[in-house]
């Protein structure tokens, strides 16, 4: 099975560094972008298998990026998981409605977060783990 590629879109440099290390340690390839413009460019160029999206971003709100991703034929079916510091009460439903498959508030529980990533990437074995958490 080829290495799955994950795009992290977040404007916090340290968070990117920490999360990328974690994902790489879990066997994924990681690309990243720190603002909306870069995010679209990297997404189009890299065609990732999964996108982890922050909502508060410079040059393009996360919802805007989500909307654009869903409008692009080669990216519309790429699963998006939102990882944001924002209150899920106001944002979770909106994100899911806009096409995200899951919403995690920062900081997420590592186990749940990784299970959701595996599930999103269609790694069926991980599904039972996801359900048990």
């Amino acid at each position, binding site marked *: 099975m080829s290495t799955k590629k994950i795009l992290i879109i977040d404007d916090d440099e340290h*968070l990117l560094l920490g999360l990328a*290390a974690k994902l790489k340690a879990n066997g994924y390839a990681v690309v990243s972008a720190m603002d909306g413009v870069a995010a679209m460019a990297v997404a189009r160029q890299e065609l990732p298998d999964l996108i982890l999206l922050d909502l508060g971003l410079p040059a393009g709100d996360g919802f805007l990026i989500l909307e654009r991703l869903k409008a692009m034929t080669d990216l519309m079916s790429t699963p998006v998981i939102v990882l944001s510091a924002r209150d899920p009460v106001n944002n979770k439903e909106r994100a899911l409605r806009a*096409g995200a498959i899951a919403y995690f508030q920062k900081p997420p529980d590592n186990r749940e977060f990784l299970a959701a990533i595996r599930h999103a990437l269609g790694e069926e074995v991980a599904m039972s783990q996801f359900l048990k958490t």
Partner: protein
Amino acid sequence: MIPQELEQIDVMEPVPLEEEASSVIGRVANGIAKVDLSRRERAELLDVKAWGPMLETYGRTMKVAVALTGAEGNLLGRCHNAQPVWTLIHSTIVDRGTCPFCLSPPSPCTAVADALRTGIPTIVRDSAGLTHVAVPLSLGNHRLGAIIAGQVSNQYPESLFLQRAAKKFGVSAQLLWNLSNKQRPVSCAALQLAGDLLCTLGQAFLRQRYSAILEAHVAETNLRFRMLVEGVTDYALFTADHLGRVTSWNSGAERMLGYPEAQIVGQEFSRMFTVEDVHNDAPGRQLRKASQEGRSEDEGWRVREDRTQFWANVIITPLPEEADSHRGFALVMQNVTDRRKTAIELEAVRQERTSLQEQFLSHVSHELRTPLTALYFFITNLLEGVVGDLTSKQREHLEFSLENVKQLKDMVGDLLDVSRIETLKLTVDPRRTSVPSLIAEVLRTCRANAELKNISLLSDIAECLPAAWADRARVRQVLINLIENGIRFTPTNGAITVQGRIFAEDSGFLCLSVTDTGCGMSQESCLMVFDRLAQVKVLTEASRKGLGLGLFISKELVSQQGGRIWVESQVGSGSSFYFTLPVFSLAKLCAPILTQANLAAGCVTLLSIDVPAIDGAIQTQDPTMIRKVLERCILAGQDLLLPSMSDTETTEAFFIVACTGASGAEAIARRLRGELNNSTHKLAISATTLQLSANGQRWEERITEIATHIDKLIQTHLLERSISLEY
């Protein structure tokens, strides 16, 4: 010859009337039971000017003298139709007693006193042989005075008696003789009848006087009230008939609404409403509400004669019912436009402040979360060996760091919750929640921390505990908060017990408790711990750890779910925190739909929708999302989307109790398909239905049937789920 016995009637004795006559008079006198009279009213009742003509007529008709007296027997006004013999003798008497008629001083005449005491006419005869009758004038319990009538003898006097009398009173015997023979005698019986008539007349006249006084009072009160109403210019005061047509209008109303009285009286009061309100029957509704509830109060726009509008507060009360007419209404209207404006401005300020506070807390929470996340990733990466192996000392230090990060994360969460509480945005989403599994899960979460202090975590749950109607995540939060507190305040080797019971005081609730063997607290502290930022001074360093918001949030969370929270504790002997949650009741949920009438009509259907059976391109498995889609497909108030019936959200199946027949269930399915096709969720549904009808079965049996059916479906569904996971 003068009869000896007449000489002896110097001592006057009352001569009561015959019984039958007295009872008639008694009734008349007692016609008014209880009356309050002022001194002025008493004087008005016996106003001699008013009585004069009646007494004059009576005296002339009956050919007797007549006069009005006070309660003491004193003459009021003058003596009408004085008799000649009496006039002759009376003019010679120097020392007159109180009784205006008696010609026998100085013995006091008690006729008036006796009549007032006994309530019946009393006849007396004086030493000149003249008789008079006193009739009482009383109103209720008030003895007001009397009327005396007489100055007559019961026969033509004999000459010897006349000579003696002339000598005694120093008048001319000839003159006395002449006058005596001119004056027709009146028998005692005739005088009694005259007294009877006078009593009736007197009481009737008295009552008529009393009515006149009352009427004058009412008229005066009305006049004053009208002046008052007219004088009120800050309020519009008016009345309307049962159809809402204006019947009276004060100057305040004219000032406020612009209509002069002549123009508005007879017009419908609905013309003061806006077109929309009239269209919505607001005027009629308000009158009906006032009729039914005895009062209606409303605030809204009202329209002046010049079509300008103002914000009014209007109170409508029905007027007392009158015999042959419909009830009208009294309306009090106040222009509260300024007050409303102030309230709106205040509300805007409050909202702005709330919004700023919310923004601030949200900003703080947001800004703390991102670095916290980076920290969390770095620490967990190190612990997971992502950047190489660790020494045991390094690992230990990193584990402490991780612990602190988690604490920080909880604090940030608490800050956000407090912000939600204060902006009234804290919401709970109650579901059918199994308490034993929840407690087990919470204990697993807290075990690691407890083990650090070698504290044993125990659970004690009643068998067959019914499910709660609660928000699982929020109850979890409360339990974790209570247990973490317990761990903090319990010394090493202690124990914490979580109990779940039916609430002893009300079987409609479950009672959960967390009991520790910690340091306990005073009664005073017990009352304070749930306050915001409560700092319990008596506690150790440990109490200063954290923000002190946990119990405040727990209290809000519990009360939002319909329960209450409290603590029982004593210093040195541990604490027990208790909270209650409503028991889940399918019957209560279904009650509005599962009515006898609906069941009898055979139109209740249980529709079950299986989420894992939803196939196609699933873009979300979030039950909350699917629930929202389903909510849009039912008719509120008619159909019911039941809450989650299974214990874990990921295995949710949905149930709708539809107040429609089988065709209605199809309609819901159609709406659902339409809704799903229009949305980004390309879902297909499979549904099973259970038709419910009355069939002579009891209501409880229908509920049991629904519950059994649901349980069966959930179990089948869980079974399928576990199979698909295993293989």
